[in-house]
């Protein structure tokens, strides 16, 4: 018995000793891989979390998601008409291959982002660009055709990562697949899709954002990003120290992990990632505003957050979380309360009569909206919970599930009544400009929300030159879409990081959901 025990312990020790080849190496577990690591050709969170570490942006954003802070640019200026931004760059920045970064690289990166030949799905995030030029090696002039109050926030995103022209041209279609030479705190080592991506620290790195205690070289020599699709495996991998840090921990495990001796759990205070169900407002089943309001009153989001997610998320009552930049607190009193009885009464009043099976009918229309959802355990919980709640008011939500890659195509059609979606955002403007302009029908404005006032206010917000004007314009949009109950908000998801106690605790970042952001504070405890 005794020998057996020692054997087990010795072997356990050897698991941790596996990383012996490197002075310090940690394994980071995540749920899925990205399709590629070309900043202009992917919108995946899995890509953003890698790109933030491999590369840098001109400006960075603090964990509060409000404050813009210097990155590769030491300072920037906006002209009075809001059309010209001038960035002053650091002169000591080097790519991983040792070449010095200059303003030309910045111009190249942004030009490629905007070039129609790149087919970037996210080039709208760069604004309506007139020209981007480099008067000298450390100055970049970014000229817009019309003001874009979101620009600085958009430039903190991974899409605005500065890339290496020489490498892009040398690699062609393999850029972001075979390699990605950036200026970030870590350098690309290798990638085996759906399995592992490894990176090593960038020697000589010295331009980390100010809010990091460590602005210099990374404190870990090598990072191994391991794809582990199974929730249970990720959890036990953490508990057995096969992985040292992850932000993809099932909520059910959080409580237990919090009390586990060898694991730290930290959660961001606020959430900038929201799950919602959107309604196609011109479909018979959900065209009636009373139906949409009743649905919003029938679902108990707080119980959902507690019961299905064990309190690891926040019940969402609004389309963006109340900590978001330009959120209007005055709106909170107007949001529909949870009240199934009132919801039932509202539907009765509107003429929706329960049939023999309990499902309401009006003018031959059965209240059985077809909802399209993604596969995966989170959407399974959300959709099945909503289905059960809505049944109580005589609404029979039909759940149809699609794998992510197929789902995007299906959700671009007009064949459904409702759709489940989740998204990260930096500000109210970021969220609203994505989903509500009529020009974004049929996708991402899958609701077919076609409203001249909304369009006008969104333009006002975009063109605003001061904070008050911008916040005022977006507030009007927020009021309008919440009043119309275009969505059913479900949960706001904060970033949670679970890590081994061998690592120093980390403050989770919320930028695009990439909780480790630049990874500069990853450090082994002595």
């Amino acid at each position, binding site marked *: 018995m005794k020998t057996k025990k020692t054997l087990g312990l010795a072997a356990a020790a050897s698991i941790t000793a596996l990383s012996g080849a490197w002075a310090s190496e940690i394994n980071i577990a995540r749920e899925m891989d990205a399709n590629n690591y070309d900043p202009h050709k992917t919108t995946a969170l899995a890509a953003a979390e890698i790109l933030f570490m491999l590369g840098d942006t001109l400006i960075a954003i603090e964990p509060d998601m409000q404050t813009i802070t210097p990155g590769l640019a030491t300072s920037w200026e906006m002209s009075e008409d809001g059309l010209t931004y001038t960035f002053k760059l650091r002169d000591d920045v080097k790519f991983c291959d040792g070449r010095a970064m200059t303003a030309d690289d910045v111009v190249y990166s942004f030009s490629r982002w905007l070039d129609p030949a790149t087919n970037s799905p996210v080039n709208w995030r760069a604004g309506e660009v007139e020209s981007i030029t480099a008067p000298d090696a450390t100055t970049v002039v970014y000229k817009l055709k019309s003001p874009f109050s979101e620009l600085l926030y958009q430039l903190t995103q991974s899409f605005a990562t500065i890339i290496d022209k020489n490498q892009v041209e040398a690699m062609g279609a393999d850029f972001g697949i075979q390699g990605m030479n950036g200026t970030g705190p870590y350098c690309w080592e290798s990638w085996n899709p759906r399995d592992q991506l490894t990176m090593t620290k960038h020697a000589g790195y010295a331009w980390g954002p100010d809010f990091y205690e460590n602005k210099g070289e990374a404190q870990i020599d090598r990072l191994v990003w391991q794809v582990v699709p199974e929730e*249970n495996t990720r959890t036990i991998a953490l508990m057995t120290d096969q992985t040292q840090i992850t932000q993809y921990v099932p909520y059910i495990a959080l409580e237990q992990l919090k009390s586990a001796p060898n694991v730290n759990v930290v959660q961001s205070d606020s959430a900038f990632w929201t799950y919602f169900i959107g309604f196609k407002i011109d479909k018979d089943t959900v065209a009636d505003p009373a139906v949409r309001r009743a649905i919003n009153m029938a679902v108990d989001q707080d119980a959902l957050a507690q*019961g299905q997610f064990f309190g690891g998320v926040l019940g969402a009552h609004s389309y963006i979380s109340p900590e978001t930049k330009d959120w209007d607190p005055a709106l909170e009193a107007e949001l529909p309360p949870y009240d199934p009885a009132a919801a039932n009464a509202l539907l009765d009043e509107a003429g929706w009569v329960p049939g023999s099976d309990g499902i309401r009918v009006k003018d031959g229309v059965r209240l059985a909206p077809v909802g399209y959802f993604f596969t995966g355990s989170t959407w399974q919980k959300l959709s099945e919970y909503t289905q059960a709640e809505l049944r109580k008011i005589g609404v029979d939500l039909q759940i149809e599930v699609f794998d992510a890659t197929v789902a995007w195509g299906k959700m671009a059609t007009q064949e459904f009544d409702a759709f489940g979606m989740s998204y990260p955002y930096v500000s109210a403007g970021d969220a609203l400009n994505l989903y509500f302009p009529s020009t974004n029908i049929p996708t991402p404005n899958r609701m077919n929300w076609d409203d001249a006032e909304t369009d006008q206010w969104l333009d006002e917000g975009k063109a605003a030159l001061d904070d008050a004007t911008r916040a005022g314009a977006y507030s009007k949009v927020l009021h309008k879409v919440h009043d119309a109950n275009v969505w059913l908000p479900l949960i706001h998801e904060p970033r949670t990081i679970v890590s081994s106690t061998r690592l120093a605790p980390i403050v989770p970042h919320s930028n695009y959901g990439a909780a480790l952001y630049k990874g500069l504070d990853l450090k082994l405890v002595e």
Partner: protein
Amino acid sequence: MSAVDAAAAVEAAPARRHWFVALMRDPAAAIAIIVFVLIAVAAALAPWLAPYDPTESTRNMMLPPVWAERGIPEHLLGTDGQGRDILSRLLYGTRMTLLIGLIAVVAGGGIGSLLGLLAAFYSRLDPWIMRSADVMLSFPAILLGLALVAVMGAGIMPVILALAIATVPDSARIARSVAVGVMKQEFVEAGRAVGLSDRTLFTRYLLRNCISSIMIFMSLRFGQVILLGSALSFLGLGARPPASELGMMASQGRDFMLFAPHIAIIPSLAIFVIVLTANVAGDALRDVLDPRMRS
């Protein structure tokens, strides 16, 4: 008339007369058959036996079975991650799993055996049928299931179809090999000599002489089909929520392995017991009916 009688005499193997008695004399087989029948009956009666609606979720999530700490008698086997009664889901899930296996084996085995018999009966057809079977064999069931799901979307139909199609080539091979042996026997010659039609020869002699072997193959195949079907469901390709199916239940339960292992273990054990009893019964059936066929 005399030819027919002669053939009937050949066909009636002595061991078959009391095959059921012989079967029940083997204690392992007897237990397996009784357990299997009990499970099948319970599954068939699921709507009447199940204490709860299998899709109804309560706020009582991840309750352990009644014999464990925290277990309550209202939920004998506990509840799953959505707070649904596991016993009720188990009953409905078993019904679904058995149905999937049964339909797939009967349809696939039936078509495959027919093709195999035809191949043996009409030698012209033989290369075509067996070559096609080879092509089908190079698409293993799991890939077929994946491909069909890609076309039809996840659901029970593509899984049944995949399992049925995957059963076709194997049963064609078995049926052919048995039938080729039968075709060599004298009564077929005799039947032809007295001018019996192909149809009569095929149905009354060939089919009747091969049917027991085919049945044995199907019963042995049943367990394998159940396992494959549950693997497909486990991968998320089978039944869609909120329906109950054992493989899917196990799959949903694996996320809770650490904190509520019973959610995955109970349906897995149910699959194990079903397949085990089917295999033991199938083996015994083979030993009793056809001691020669041992592969």
